[in-house]
């Protein structure tokens, strides 16, 4: 074999061998060990929440329990899909979802374990899975964001009012976000298919501007592109905390028609996990007083655990915000919502 060919082949074999030995690479979360070093005590977390929003809670747990947490950060829905594909072979022990639909879908596949009673008892019933497979960690409220130069008198009390011609072209929404999809699901379940359909068609006809996510809605209000937006409260709260009180966007907790809808982030333990005790401990840590305080102070979301007080910047207490009955995480309901949104041209 000519030298250069031999050289190339050898080079490739060496490359392949070194890859196969595998797992080399600088670890960026500060913890040691590649994927091939088994951690007998540590746990693996799939987190739809970015490091800035959960890192502190993880660190707290690691320090207290003297255990290592390996975290995979990715989009919540991607992680849910991954868990479903992995099935029982998943290396994950805990799944933290930013939206209830995702964790509901994973639960429906039978992949989540039933949580111990002490965990379930810590969180009010309406903030956890009826079958006990996951609990909420934080709550966020879907509110009406508005430009701060708009007088209070102009603010509609219900999202259903946004189809009025006075709001034409001035409202932004995110049909692709789980935030809005949850709201439509609630409308459907509580007020019927027709109301939901009418509202969707009305919004489309009224020139509601599409945004891919909540952040861009907030930014669009701030820049003046739109005057109103349906988004999650904490995005505005974070911006205010970062930029100061003169940030040009305010939130209004619309009192009617679930204008202020509570949405949960949730955590569950994988049935396939071989470290369930440690995983349950981690969950406990998240819903402990310290854990809940971490979340509310950093991301300005509401704590869900009983007896924990929300961050002072959140003026409206959670108890005053209506939350619907019914299982918002039922995937078939979600699919029906998607279909309706696609039919009406909202999606």
């Amino acid at each position, binding site marked *: 074999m000519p030298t*250069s060919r031999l050289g190339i082949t050898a080079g490739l074999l060496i490359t392949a061998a070194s890859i196969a030995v*595998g797992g080399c*690479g600088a670890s960026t979360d500060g913890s040691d060990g590649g994927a091939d070093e088994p951690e007998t005590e540590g746990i693996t977390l799939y987190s739809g929440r970015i490091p*800035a929003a959960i890192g502190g809670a993880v660190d707290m747990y690691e320090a207290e329990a003297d255990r290592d947490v*390996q975290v*995979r950060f990715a989009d919540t829905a991607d992680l849910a899909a991954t868990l479903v594909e992995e099935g029982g072979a998943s290396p994950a022990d805990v799944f933290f979802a930013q939206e209830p639909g995702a964790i509901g879908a994973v639960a429906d596949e039978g992949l989540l374990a039933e949580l111990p009673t002490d965990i379930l008892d810590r969180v009010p019933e309406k903030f956890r899975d009826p079958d006990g497979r996951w609990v909420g960690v934080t709550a966020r409220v879907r509110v009406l964001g508005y430009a701060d130069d708009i007088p209070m008198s102009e603010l509609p009390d219900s999202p259903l009012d946004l189809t009025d011609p006075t709001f034409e072209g001035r409202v932004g929404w995110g049909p692709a976000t789980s935030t809005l999809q949850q709201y439509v699901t609630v409308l459907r379940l509580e007020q019927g298919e027709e109301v939901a359909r009418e509202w969707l068609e009305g919004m489309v006809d009224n020139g509601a501007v599409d945004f891919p996510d909540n952040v861009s809605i907030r930014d669009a209000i701030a820049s*003046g592109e739109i005057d109103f937006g349906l988004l999650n409260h904490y995005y505005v709260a974070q911006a205010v905390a970062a930029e100061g009180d003169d940030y040009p966007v305010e939130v209004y907790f619309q009192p009617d028609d679930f204008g202020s809808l509570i949405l949960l982030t949730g955590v569950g333990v994988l049935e396939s996990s071989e470290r369930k005790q440690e995983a349950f401990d981690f969950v406990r840590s998240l819903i402990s007083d310290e854990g809940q305080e971490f979340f509310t102070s950093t991301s300005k979301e509401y704590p869900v655990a009983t007896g924990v007080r929300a961050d002072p910047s959140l003026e409206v207490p959670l108890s005053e915000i209506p939350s619907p009955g019914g299982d918002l995480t039922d995937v078939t309901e979600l699919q029906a919502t998607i279909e309706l949104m696609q039919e009406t041209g909202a999606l």
Partner: protein
Amino acid sequence: MATAARRPPTPLLIAGIVIGAAAMLPAGYLLLIVAGELGPALEVAVDPDTLLVVARTLALAAAVTATAIAIALPIAWLTVRTDLPARRLWAALCTLPLVIPSYVGAYLFVAALGPNGLLQDALGVERLPSIYGFTGAWLVLSLFTFPLVLLPVRATLRRIDPQLEDAARAMGRAPLEVFRTVVIPQLWPALAAGGLLVALYVMSDFGAVSIMRFDSFTSEIYIAYKSAFDRTAAAGLGAVLVVLMLVLLWINSRVRNANAVHRLGPGPARPPKPYALGRWRAPALAFCAAVVLIALVLPVGVLVYWSTKGISSGSTSFELVGALATNTLLAASFAALVGGACAVAVALLASRFPGSASRAIERSSHAGYALPGIVVALALVYFATRAFEPIYQTLTLLVFALVVHYLPLGIGAIGSSLAQVPPRVEEAARGLGRGPSQVFATITMPLVRGGILAGTALVFLHAAKELPATLILAPIGFETLATEIWNQTSFGFYEASAIPSLVLLAIAAPPIFFLSERGTVTS
């Protein structure tokens, strides 16, 4: 004169089959899911709304491809054949937009040109015309993908025989007509190859189109599995995407002249005399400058601006960035090496041993590129957890995913340089007593070295910017610059994302410089 198709040597054929099969894993995954629930999947696939979105996306792909060619062709001509000042610099600068990930590019565009963007502030205007929707998506995608056409066209322009053009001029044809009737036909293979890559990229892109608020086909896929958690619908749509890809490939092979540009005259090419631009020099420079300004200076400028704010506000950690850069280099380099080798095998089969097997292998190796990265990732999760457990969530699997996803980029570059090696030269070598593998090593490889390096550089570049598959498949704790950018931008912390973005550009830029300098058959 007809040459009977030769049978490829068995090791090469086996390698090709393995590569083709591996590249088909994502499509196979889709088929498996769809096969499980054929009815619902078909329903989704043939739904009139789906078809509408397909039409819309194809329209975008066509528009972007046409625009990319319209931008790339003049630049290629100006930088290869004329006396434009600082030609090589312009060529390199015009290739650099490729290093900007499309989602970053879209963010930057909105930041620069959108409502309350920097430009609006700078101009002091109340409101700029809207850049969202089809127009915005078209603009952004064209500006960041045209280098995919520029590279092969430049390489081909350097190789074609200028005597043909001289002959046409002598026959009294004006320069523009000569260009149209003599040069363009010889450029078809390069235009077709680059155009195909652009079209497939548009079909599979999600980041840019979602930011520019255009509902493309990939948006449908994302809705199906992200919002409705409906694997079957998502797979059905993905299967439609694979079918579309096959259609595009078929169109491409019809358009492309399979027997590409061999020199017909005797001997190697003489370099052509540069065409004097004269009074066209200023407009030509203006054109190049405009492209570089919009596609490169603007985005990089915004990044630099943000990064200064990010540094001053203390939200950037340089130590972290160093570790991220190392990881990015590692993954991308491995992907480039393996991908380059695989691309050589497939390109060899397709050009030296044409036949139905080689064609099938070449077609199937495009399957991973046309699908969105998340589908590739999920497919490998599926197969790895069931069959290749030990490599699950290791660097090996990530490299495998990157290769599967970006293989066609390597094949295109290597294929076109292989096509430019006259077969007589290899036959001459055979007649002089060297066997096929020796001929390959001593004659073919040196002549296509430039193409191989170009293909490898392209794979490296794209692997460095890749996001969704990296998030899912990389070993835990293995973060790259791309994943860090995602971390920051998903909560709107754009300024903190600027430094990782700039470092990513810095990593990706040298191979690109190299590409535009030396993408020739013989250096």
